[in-house]
């Protein structure tokens, strides 16, 4: 296996897995194929204590990938609706979710584009995003890093709270607000800039900071010195990913399933 033989999806999965590295024994929720496979990869490698579900109502002993299953997984606990709220309000969860819009404060939206009363596009509704955002750590995945997703002003309807002092009656968010990482098709970011400014912490192979900034509606910080390249999957990680995702759903996330190192093509 040569160093370049991994896809962008696999690079992103490894970056997603990293969000759970130091979480200990928490409920790990990855929404969408790549975050979900990422949670599985974390569980099978460096974060064995995390609990993942079958996507319905059960915690499973082994991670369950997207798509058809060869056999029913072993269930290790119940994760019904009531239990999910109990878990998340306790703070012992870290979700990696895929909103439609995010802004400079980390405020995120899955409800509407346009006016809430008569939206240009009605989407899901707020779901559990408001409660998630102020209860436990959250990270984000965006398949298309562009200015429609990373908006210039505030998002059209704030479903997830962020680091926006104007939104808090005493100027400070609840203690549970803990935004961790943003993984995109171009880079990995965190909220480690001044006053939680979103900061590029690694660039995918062949991507420049300028390209990321040009596709973002607000100014980004960057780590000091040369920005690291997002680590390529190891051979062992690629094997685990294939085991978690035997249906190769990961190949369907990005158009034409591009290589992880765009210069390799």
């Amino acid at each position, binding site marked *: 296996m040569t160093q370049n033989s991994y896809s962008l999806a696999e690079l992103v999965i490894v970056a997603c897995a990293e969000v759970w590295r130091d979480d200990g024994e928490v409920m790990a929720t990855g929404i969408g194929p790549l975050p979900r496979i990422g949670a599985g990869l974390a569980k099978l490698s460096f974060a064995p204590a995390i609990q993942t579900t079958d996507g319905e*109502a059960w915690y499973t002993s082994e991670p369950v990938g997207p798509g058809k299953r060869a056999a029913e997984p072993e269930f290790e606990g119940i994760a019904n609706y009531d239990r999910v709220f109990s878990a998340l309000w306790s703070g012992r969860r870290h979700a990696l979710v895929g909103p439609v819009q995010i802004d400079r404060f980390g405020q995120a939206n899955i409800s*509407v584009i346009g006016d809430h009363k008569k939206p240009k596009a009605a989407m899901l509704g*707020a779901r*559990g995003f408001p409660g998630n955002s102020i209860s436990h750590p959250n990270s984000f995945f965006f398949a298309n890093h562009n200015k429609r997703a990373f908006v210039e002003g505030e998002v059209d309807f704030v479903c997830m*709270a962020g680091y926006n002092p104007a939104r808090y009656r005493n100027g400070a968010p609840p203690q549970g607000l803990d935004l961790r990482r943003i993984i995109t098709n171009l880079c990995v970011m965190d909220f480690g800039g001044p006053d939680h400014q979103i900061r590029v912490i690694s660039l995918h192979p062949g991507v420049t900071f300028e390209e990321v900034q040009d596709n973002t509606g607000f100014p980004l910080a960057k780590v000091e010195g040369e920005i690291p390249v997002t680590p390529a999957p190891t051979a062992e990680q690629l094997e685990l990913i294939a085991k978690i995702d035997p249906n190769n759903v990961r190949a369907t996330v990005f158009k034409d399933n591009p290589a992880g190192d765009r210069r390799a093509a």
Partner: protein
Amino acid sequence: MLDKRMTVDDIVDQISDGMTIGIGGWATRRKPMALIRAIARSNLKDLTLMAGYGGMDIGLLAATGKIRKLVFAFASLDHYPLEPHFRNARQAGAFEVLELDEGMYHWGLRAGAMKLPFLPTRVGIGTDIINQSGFDFKFVKSPYADGEEFVAMPALVPDIALIHAHRSDERGNILTLSVDPIFDELLVRAAGKSYVTVEKIVPTAELDMKKNSRYNLVERAMITGVAEAPLGAHPTSADPDYQLDLKHIKTYVESAASPEAWADYKAKYIDVSEADYQAAIGGEEAVKQLPVPIY
């Protein structure tokens, strides 16, 4: 003898224009669809619909113009994430909304069930949920040393709750046999009256209550009436009796593409008797064969 048996149409007759109706289930799971279809073809109007965990219940009542106000946290068909008739109606500004977080909705039902005016929560802080024109959210300060300020989530109290369960006896002792009861218990406890459709009404002994006690969500005093409605959750699931019907849901999704497509769907599946509906979906045999979905 205490006998709470009714028909689906009897239940719909209990609803009047302008009422607040709470719907149980979750997206594609155990929605009381036989009741929703009956409401959709009734003359009812101006309903306030409380459907926190919504799907086709919202979509069908939106498409048939029954909703004046919607209280919800999402509308989704899960495998088809966006509810197309909900979208069309929202984008036309067809009704008022109060959009909540899923947990706030849960909390509102719990307050209603506990006969409290509100319950404190952090949920909503920092978001646009608490800035909607549809409701003037208030705040409460902890009276203890911490002094933290919370959102006061108001009780959600529907006039009538509608849920779908698996079994009942004629007195309204119900069993909800699926792994996840969702928040149907709280909805029933919060509502003024509660009506349940079930797959089958059986003698009390057949409920095997000693073995099935965990599936008995509420005491029968909370249940106003029960109607036998086999396949009454279709096309949503009533696992373990049957699974969701993804093919039908796809047909439903496609019905939002044009007024003609909707007219066809409505003529075939809504403006018909429940018996004709069942025939149109292939009958019990086809529904019982539906595969377990993959999430």
